[in-house]
C-alpha cells in the first residue's frame, strides 16, 4: 500500500538561525497511526504544521517535500507546490489538524457549535439539521455529557479538556483522510483520554483514516501507534514500527525516554505521616455556579455547577494532588484557592501564611492583604499560551511579578529570570522572544518559571507537565520536589497523569462532576481504590507497554454516568452521597 502522506527531508528554520526542523522524513499509510514523540521543542508541531502549510509567518521551509496521495491510484501531489486556493480543498476536508493549545486556537467570539459545524458547512453538502445532528453525535462521542450545552457555549466557558475535545470533534467531524493530532489528550483525564483514543481507533476502522499522533505519553503510543518517529532537537532520532521501537529502542535518546517514563509503582511507597495537620490552605464548603452567556435572552438561563461543596486542605510542605474527569471543576477549584474566582456565598477559603498564623479568608481580603497573599501564592496555568500577554517579551513577562512586588533591580530580576529558565530547562536566549515563538511544552515551562520567580510558599499547578515529554517532565518534577523539600513549599497539584500524581502527591483527591468522590493518601488510593471512578481512572492509565492495553471495560463502567454506578455510590441529579471516611485519611463518597 502506498503512503498517504510522505514528508521528505523537511528542513525549517527561523531567520538566519540553525534549523529547528532538520531533514525530517516520515510517512503514514491510510488507516495507520504514526506516533511522533520526542523532546519538547524538538519540532514536532512545526513538522505537522508544515504538512498543512500553516507555519508561522516567520518560519521558512528551507527544503523538503510533502507528498499527499490523491484518490486511489493517482500520483501523489506535493502540497508545498500547491496554490493557497487548492490547499483550501485539502485542509479540513482531507487533512485536518488538532492544535496543541485549544484555548487560543478557538475563536473567543464564536460559539463552539458554530466553529465546529463550519467544517461541514465548508466541505460537505448537507442540510442544517443534518449538520447539527452530526456535530452533536460527534460531541457525544468525544465524551461530552451535555452536547447541547457545549454546542451553545463559548470557548472560555469550557474547561481545558472540554476545549480540547471540541478541537478533536472539529477535526473529526469532517471525516478526513488524515488527522494530524498534536497532543490531543494533554488536558484530558485518563478515562476521557481512553474514550477519545477509542474513538480515534473506531473511526480509523470505519473510514480507513490515517492519524499522525503527536504525543509525549509513551503509554498512549503503546496503545495506539503502528509506527513511531522519535525526534530530538529537530532531528529524527529513530523511527520504525511501534512494537519494535518500544520494546527494543536502538537509539540512545529513545532509551533515555523509555527510562524516564513514570509509572505507578507496583507496591505502595510509604510516605512519612504526621499526625498533626498544618494546613496552609483550607477550603470549606466551596461551591461555584456559572451562568452561560450563549443562550438567547428569552430562554431560561443555563446554569453550570462547576464545583459543589468542596472540602479539603493543603498541608504545609505537602502536595495535594487533584485528579479527576475533565470538566469536573479542578481548575475552578484551583482558581478559587488563589482568590481569582469568587466562590458562591457561604464558602470559606482560609490561608495561613505561616504555621499557626491567623488564617485569612481569601473571600474577604482587603487590598494590602491581597497583595501580601499574592506574593506567597502563585499559579501555573493549565493553558499557558493564553495567560502570557502576546505583546510582552518573555523577559518582561518573567520579570513582571518581581516588578509588581518591587523586588530587586532590573539586572537582578533579569538574572533571576535567566536562572528560572535554566531551572525549567530552557535557554536564557529565549528571553527576548515573544510567547508565540515557543513550542507548547516550552510555554508550559515558562509558566512554571514565572510562578517560581517570586519564590512563593504556595503553588497551584494546573496540569504543569501535561505538554512535556517524559524526560523534561522528569526534570521538572524533580525540580518541583526539590524546591518543595528545600523551601517547604506546598502544592495544589492538578494532573491527569496518575503516574505523576503517584510520584509527587502526599494526598490525592479525585473529582467528578464538581465533587470530590474519593480522597486519601496515594498509597491507599492507588492500591485500594474504593470508588468505581477511581478504579476506572487507574485502569485507564496507559502504560508504555505494548502488551498491557487499557482495560476498556472497567474504564467504561467507572467513567460512565454516575447513575450507572453501583447503588452505594450512585448520584441522583444534584444529590450525591456524603463523603465518608473509610480508612485513616481515606474518604469515599458513598452510602455506608
Amino acid at each position, binding site marked *: 500500500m502506498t503512503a498517504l502522506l510522505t514528508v521528505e527531508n523537511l528542513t525549517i528554520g527561523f531567520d538566519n538561525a540553525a534549523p529547528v526542523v532538520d531533514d525530517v522524513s516520515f510517512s503514514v499509510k491510510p488507516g495507520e497511526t504514526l506516533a511522533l514523540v520526542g523532546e519538547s521543542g524538538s519540532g514536532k508541531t512545526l513538522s505537522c504544521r508544515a504538512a498543512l502549510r500553516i507555519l508561522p509567518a516567520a518560519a521558512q521551509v528551507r527544503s523538503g517535500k510533502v507528498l499527499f496521495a490523491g484518490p486511489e491510484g493517482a500520483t501523489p501531489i506535493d502540497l508545498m507546490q500547491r496554490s493557497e486556493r487548492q490547499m*483550501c480543498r485539502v*485542509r479540513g476536508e482531507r487533512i485536518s489538524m488538532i492544535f496543541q493549545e485549544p484555548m487560543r486556537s478557538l475563536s473567543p467570539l464564536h460559539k463552539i457549535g458554530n466553529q465546529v459545524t463550519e*467544517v461541514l458547512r465548508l466541505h460537505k453538502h448537507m442540510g442544517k439539521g443534518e449538520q447539527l445532528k452530526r456535530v452533536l453525535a460527534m460531541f457525544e462521542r468525544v465524551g461530552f455529557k451535555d452536547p447541547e450545552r457545549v454546542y451553545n457555549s463559548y470557548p472560555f466557558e469550557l474547561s481545558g479538556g472540554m476545549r480540547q475535545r471540541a478541537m478533536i470533534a472539529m477535526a473529526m467531524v469532517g471525516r478526513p483522510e488524515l488527522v494530524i493530532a498534536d497532543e490531543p489528550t494533554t488536558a484530558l483525564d485518563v478515562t476521557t483520554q481512553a474514550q477519545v483514543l477509542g474513538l480515534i481507533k473506531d473511526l480509523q476502522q470505519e473510514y480507513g483514516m490515517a492519524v499522525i499522533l503527536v504525543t509525549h505519553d509513551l503509554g498512549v503510543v503503546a496503545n495506539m501507534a503502528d509506527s513511531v518517529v522519535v525526534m530530538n532537537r529537530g532531528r529524527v532520532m529513530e523511527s520504525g514500527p511501534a512494537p519494535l521501537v518500544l520494546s527494543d529502542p536502538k537509539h540512545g535518546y529513545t532509551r533515555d525516554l523509555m527510562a524516564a517514563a513514570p509509572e505507578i509503582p507496583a507496591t505502595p511507597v510509604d510516605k512519612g505521616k504526621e499526625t498533626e495537620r498544618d494546613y496552609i490552605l483550607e477550603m470549606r464548603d466551596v461551591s461555584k455556579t456559572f451562568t452561560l452567556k*450563549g443562550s438567547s435572552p428569552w430562554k431560561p438561563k443555563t446554569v453550570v455547577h462547576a464545583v459543589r461543596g468542596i472540602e479539603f486542605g493543603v498541608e504545609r510542605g505537602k502536595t495535594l494532588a487533584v485528579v479527576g474527569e475533565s470538566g469536573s471543576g479542578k481548575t475552578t477549584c484551583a482558581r478559587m484557592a488563589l482568590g481569582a474566582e469568587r466562590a458562591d456565598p457561604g464558602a470559606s477559603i482560609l490561608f495561613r501564611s505561616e504555621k499557626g498564623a491567623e488564617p485569612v479568608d481569601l473571600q474577604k481580603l482587603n487590598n494590602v492583604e491581597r497583595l501580601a497573599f499574592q506574593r506567597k501564592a502563585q499559579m501555573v496555568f493549565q493553558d499557558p499560551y493564553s495567560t502570557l500577554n502576546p505583546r510582552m517579551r518573555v523577559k518582561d513577562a518573567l520579570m513582571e511579578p518581581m516588578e509588581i512586588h518591587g523586588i530587586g533591580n532590573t539586572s537582578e530580576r533579569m538574572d533571576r529570570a535567566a536562572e528560572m529558565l535554566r531551572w525549567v530547562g530552557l535557554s536564557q536566549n529565549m528571553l527576548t522572544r515573544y510567547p*508565540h515563538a515557543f513550542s507548547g511544552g516550552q510555554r508550559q515551562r515558562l509558566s512554571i518559571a514565572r510562578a517560581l520567580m517570586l519564590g512563593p510558599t504556595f503553588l497551584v499547578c494546573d496540569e504543569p507537565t501535561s505538554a512535556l515529554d517524559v524526560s523534561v517532565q522528569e526534570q521538572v518534577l524533580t525540580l518541583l520536589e526539590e524546591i518543595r523539600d528545600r523551601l517547604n513549599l506546598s502544592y495544589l497539584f492538578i494532573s491527569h497523569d496518575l503516574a505523576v500524581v503517584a510520584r509527587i502527591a502526599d494526598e490525592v483527591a479525585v473529582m467528578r462532576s464538581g465533587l470530590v468522590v474519593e480522597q486519601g493518601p496515594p498509597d491507599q488510593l492507588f492500591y485500594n481504590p474504593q470508588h468505581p471512578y477511581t478504579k476506572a481512572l487507574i485502569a485507564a492509565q496507559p502504560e508504555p507497554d505494548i502488551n498491557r492495553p487499557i482495560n476498556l471495560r472497567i474504564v467504561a463502567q467507572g467513567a460512565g454516568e454516575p447513575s450507572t454506578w453501583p447503588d452505594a455510590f450512585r448520584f441522583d441529579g444534584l444529590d450525591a452521597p456524603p463523603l465518608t471516611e473509610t480508612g485513616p485519611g481515606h474518604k469515599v463518597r458513598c452510602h455506608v
Partner: protein
Amino acid sequence: MAILRFAIFRFFTMLATLLVVSVMIFIIINLPPGDYLSNQINELRATGQSNGIAKAEFLRTEYSLDQPLWKQYMIWMGFMPGPHGFLGIIQGEFGWSFEFDKPVADLVGGALWMTVLVNLAAVLFIYAIALPLGVIAAARSKTWIDYTSAFVGYLGLATPNFLLALILFYYGNRYLNLPIGGLMDPKFEGEPMSFEKMKSVLIHLIIPTFVIGTSGAAAMMQRLRANLLDELGKPYVETARAKGMRESAMLVKYPLRVAFNPFVADIGTLLPSLVSGSVLVSVVLGLQTIGPVLLTALKSQDLFLSAFVLMFVALLTLIGTLVSDILLALLDPRIRFGGREK
C-alpha cells in the same frame, strides 16, 4: 433577561441624560451675545428698513423672549405654559422658526430626509469602500493595493472638503458633465418621486458622497487594517485556515469580528452623524440638508429651530450609544454588563 433589564435601565438613564443635555443646549445656544430678534432688528436697521422692527418686537412677546432664560427654557420644554397657552417640546410642539416664519416641525421634515439620504449614502460609501479595502489592505499589507488605498484615503483626508468639492465639481462638470452642487436637478424639486428624479438624485449624490465619505472611509480603513493586522497572527486564525476556509471568508468571519469592536463602539455616532454629520460640508456644497438650516439658525440665533435640531441630534446620539452598547455585548460575549469582579 439581563439584556432586557439592562436596556430598560439604560432607557431611563437616557431620559435623564436627555434632560441634562437639553438644559446645556439651551444655555449654549444662548451663549453668543444678542438674540434673534435683536439681530433681526439690527439687520433691518442696517439695511435701512425700520418698518419691520415693530413686527419683530411683536414676536418677542409672542414667544416669551422677553422672559428670563430659565423661564424661556421651562416654556420651551413645556414644563410651564407660555403666552397664548404655548405648548412645549414634551407636548410635541417644537416651536417656531423666526427666520423661516414657519413651525419648526414643518421646516425640518423635508431637510431631514435629504440629510438622511446624503449621509446614508456617505455611510454606505464608507462601509462599501472601507470595509473591503481595509480587509484587503490588512490581508495584503505592504503591497501596492495597501499603499494605493492609503494614499488615496489620505489625499481625501488631507484636502479641505470644500477645496476637494470645488475641484471635483469643476472638473467633474467639465469632463464628465456632472452637476455642480445641489441634490437633484432643480426641476424635480417638489415633484413626486420618479425614475428620472431618482436618477438625478443619484447623479447629484456622487460628488457629495465622495467628499463626505472619503475622510470617513480613510479613517475606517486604516484603523480596520491596523486592528486586523493584530488579529491575523492569532492562533485561532490558523485554526480557521486549517479548516480549509478561504482566506477572504475566514477574515470576514473571525478576525473581522474582533477587529470590529472599536467600530461598534463608535456606531453610536453613526445615527447622529446621519443628521448632523455633514453640516459644514452641506453648507459649502449647497445641499438642501439640515446642515445649512442648522448653521443659519445658529448664526442668526433662531432659537427654537436650532434647539430642536440639536435636541434631535442629541436624542439620536443617546439612542446610538445605547444601540452600540447592546451591539457590543452581542458582538463579544466576554463583555458583561456591569462591573469588574473584585
